[in-house]
């Protein structure tokens, strides 16, 4: 019974990760892209929790806490960047920030 739960937990993590990836790829609004990156990080954390629950060890939850820390600092810096882009370009279009012709 628990084995099924491990496999389906990893499947859930994979599905959520792919949904976040689709979000990053198809949206042009940079706030939506940031939210999708959050979804992907959360899916990675879910995979760690599932693995930690399978072996009944606390290491998975420790890694989840590290991912949480990283997500928090990433979202604060990302939102500061979004504020700057909005003030410079007056739009939330990610394609508008192409002055470097990348």
């Amino acid at each position, binding site marked *: 019974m628990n084995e099924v739960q491990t496999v389906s*937990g*990893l499947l859930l993590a994979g599905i*959520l990760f792919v949904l976040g990836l689709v979000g990053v*790829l198809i949206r*042009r609004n940079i706030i939506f892209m940031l939210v999708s990156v959050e979804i992907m990080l959360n899916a990675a954390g879910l995979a760690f929790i599932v693995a930690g629950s399978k072996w009944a060890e606390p290491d998975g939850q*420790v890694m989840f806490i590290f991912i949480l820390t990283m997500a928090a600092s990433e979202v604060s810096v990302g*939102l500061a960047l979004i504020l700057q882009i909005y003030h410079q370009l007056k739009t939330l279009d990610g394609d508008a920030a192409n002055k470097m012709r990348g």
Partner: protein
Amino acid sequence: MQITFYIAGAIAVLSTVMVITRFNIIHALLYLVVSFLALATVFFILGAPFAAALEIIIYAGAIVVLIIFVIMMLNLKAEAVDEEKRWLTPQVWIGPAILSIILLGELIYIISSMETTGSIAQMVDAKAVGKSLYGEYILGVELSGMLLMAGIVGAYHLGRQKKKVIHRFLEDVEE
């Protein structure tokens, strides 16, 4: 226990789909909160109550509130929704979506063909996590403290607005 796991997982997937397809960003954030709550339920079922609490407090609480604050600061008008509708046309999203679905199919194939050995269902409580966190992972805790500090300094530096200089003689000394 098994059925609650599947229900919570289904809610998480459905609400995440709603997040990436909404035109109004506040509606998307509401679905994002639902997705995080469903994932917290999944964590609880998997025997990680401390991680479930952190998921609700930090993800559904702090991070979503931070994003909402920034949206309020940007002061978006009603035209933003129409703009989103113009940006999200099928010819834009169909290609990446198909490629990602192929990737998902491969992931599902790999995970379900994986050979797993039996394991014991056991609750890992906050005490064990804390012992591990401040025992063998103490270096990681210190490094994440530094990362948070760098995040604070970076967000302050990037988010600072340039001062408007009123006097014409002072224009050269601007920042």
